[in-house]
């Protein structure tokens, strides 16, 4: 009645629990998050926001580090090439000036040789050399000019003008004859040529000094580039560090939240599991109650009616004369049918739940069960249950009875056992059951049929321990240790 109506609700509750137990699966997980108060609805979008922010943050940190690297390479390269260029410029200008200077010395010497040489022919050749030196000097100056540095242009122009003046001063002497050279040359050299030449050499030195200044300036420029690079790097590093700290903080927060979520989910799973166990225990109880009711009704109602029917049939037969063969035959058929029905009702009722369990208790029911199994299968089944009270709490009786029933079922179905030993012993505060067979056994570590799971569940629900030991070829030993409620609370309470 009420039981039958409640059962479908339990089934659907259990299926809900299963959904909660496996949050990986589709709708179940989203329902579960909505249902739980610690993980509110708006959590989902904010979590994806956090994910986006931390992704962007990590990306930015990596990008900044890349920028720092690239910038360093670029700046170091530009400093290096700047240095090389400045040095090369300096050296080329320095060389040009050197050549100018040496030409000037040479020109002084040549002028002197020319003036002092009495031989007209040799003087001519000196003059030709002098002209050549002049061209070289101009070329060197031009070369220097080619680098085009504005800073030393005034000095350079002065040098150039002085040089022109120098040549202009010297050139009248080129037309001199030997007599003129002899009489004029000393004064000419002393008063005009050498002072001018020395002045020009000093000028060239000044230009060289300028050159060095330019070199120094080049060094300073490199230092400037480096300084600006350094401050840029410091700025970028500061940003990177800040961003890194931010991203790390965010990640830690995220991890902590995930940990908390995982803990909540675990607790939820544990709770769901215990609910599931309770529900399945209730289901088992309900099933047992229904079996009891149906068994009793079959036995007491249907069975009694069939018995009455049989008696009355006998009475009817007595009133039918023996000569009425067809009627007698018909009545005989009906009687056989009623007998068969009664037999089948009785067997059905016993299979559902043997009446001895409720009428006399556990041990008579177990005796019946072992006799039946022995009769059915031909296995020798010994039951030792001398020290067990018949009056045990109903759930204990039922639990032990059903475990034995299932075990004997397994023995007859799978084990090929020759004999089975069943021992039930009641101690001060516990009830022990042991079922041992000499059958072919099985791999108890890896095989768990539904029957075993059901037995274990019944035992666990009463706070008991269920142990099954079996190996292929070595039989099976099943042990149950049930704490007894009344006594244990008396002992410890």
């Amino acid at each position: 009645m009420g039981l039958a109506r409640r059962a479908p609700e339990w089934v659907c509750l259990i299926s809900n629990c299963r959904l909660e137990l496996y949050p990986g699966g589709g709708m179940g997980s989203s329902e579960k998050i909505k249902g739980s108060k610690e993980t509110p609805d708006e959590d989902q979008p904010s979590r994806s926001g956090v994910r986006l922010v931390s992704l962007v943050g990590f990306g930015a940190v990596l990008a900044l580090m890349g920028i720092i690297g690239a910038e360093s390479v670029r700046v170091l390269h530009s400093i290096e090439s700047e240095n090389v260029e400045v040095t090369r410029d300096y050296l080329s200008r320095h060389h040009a000036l050197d050549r100018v200077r040496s030409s000037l010395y040479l020109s002084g010497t040549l002028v002197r040789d020319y003036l002092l040489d009495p031989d007209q022919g040799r003087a001519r050749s000196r003059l030709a050399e002098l002209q050549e030196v002049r061209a070289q000097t101009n070329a060197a100056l031009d070369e220097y000019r080619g680098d085009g540095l504005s800073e030393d242009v005034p000095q350079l122009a002065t040098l150039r003008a002085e040089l022109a003046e120098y040549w202009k001063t010297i050139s009248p002497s080129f037309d001199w004859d030997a007599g003129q050279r002899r009489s004029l040359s000393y004064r000419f050299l002393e008063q005009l040529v050498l002072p001018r030449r020395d002045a020009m050499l000093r000028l060239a030195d000044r230009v060289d000094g300028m050159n060095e200044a330019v070199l120094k300036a080049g060094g300073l420029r490199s230092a400037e580039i480096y300084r600006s690079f350094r401050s840029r790097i410091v700025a970028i590093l500061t940003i990177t560090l800040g961003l890194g700290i931010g991203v790390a903080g965010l990640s830690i927060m995220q991890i902590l939240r995930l940990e908390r979520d995982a803990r909540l989910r675990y607790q939820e799973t544990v709770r769901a599991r215990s609910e599931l166990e309770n529900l399945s225990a209730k289901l088992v109880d309900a099933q047992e109650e229904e079996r009891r009711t149906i068994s009793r009704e079959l036995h007491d109602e249907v069975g009694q009616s069939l018995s009455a029917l049989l008696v009355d049939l006998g009475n009817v037969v007595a009133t039918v004369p023996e000569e009425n063969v067809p009627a007698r035959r018909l009545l005989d058929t009906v009687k056989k049918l009623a007998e068969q029905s009664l037999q089948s009702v009785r067997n059905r009722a016993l299979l559902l739940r043997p009446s001895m369990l409720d009428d006399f208790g556990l041990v008579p029911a177990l005796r019946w069960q072992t006799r039946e199994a022995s009769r059915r299968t031909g296995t020798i089944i010994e039951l030792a249950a001398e020290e067990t009270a018949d009056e045990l709490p109903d759930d204990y009786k039922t639990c032990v009875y059903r475990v034995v029933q299932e075990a004997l079922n397994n023995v007859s179905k799978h084990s090929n056992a020759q004999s089975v030993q069943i021992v039930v012993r009641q101690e001060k505060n516990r009830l022990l059951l042991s079922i041992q067979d000499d059958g072919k056994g099985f791999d108890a570590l890896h095989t768990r049929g539904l029957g075993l799971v059901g037995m274990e569940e019944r035992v666990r629900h009463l706070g008991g321990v269920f142990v099954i030991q079996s190996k292929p070829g070595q039989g099976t030993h099943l042990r149950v240790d049930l704490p007894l409620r009344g006594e244990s609370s008396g002992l410890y309470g």
Partner: protein
Amino acid sequence: MGDGMASIRILLADDHTVMRAGLRLLLERQPDFEVVAEAEDGRRGVELADVHAPDVVVMDIAMPRLNGIEATRQIAIRHPQTAVVILSMHVDESYVMRALKAGARAYLLKDSAEVDLIGAVRAVALGKSFFSPAVSKLLAEDYVRQLERKGEVDSYELLTAREREILQLLAEGQSNKDVANLLNLSLYTVETHRSHILQKLGLHTIPDLILYAVRKRIIR
């Protein structure tokens, strides 16, 4: 038929009205049977047994208020001369044993009541026991199977011829005194034999002994 033959006075106890009517009809077809009262539960059965002191009570097991086995126990104590025939739906020996311990003399399955009830009532009225053939067959088969499986020696072999004789008489429901008279022995000798029998067979009470006799097919 009142031709001097004492009729057997019967009390019917069954909660099922149709069943009671059927049983009454069945029993009363015997000219020497008389159904003196009907009870619809165990308690009423005990009361009516007090009122009528019947020779035989035909008792259902499953009854409201007081079940048949308890009612049997009370009637057996109050009226040792009244024999109880148990009518039961159960074949199992736990029911047979309890019925015998409560003091019943016969154990009938309802399936075969129509066939066996008359014989059972006559048997218990004579002080004998009676079991439905289906029940005694089952008990005997279980016993034999158990002996075969265990490979034990049947303790019946340990009994002397005289002891076997006495065992059968006791199992059939005779008292020590009846046996002494029947075999021309002293009551003391019969009692000594009886305790030897129980000891050799590992039994404790007369119901144990009756059940043993049924299993051994000494009585049927």
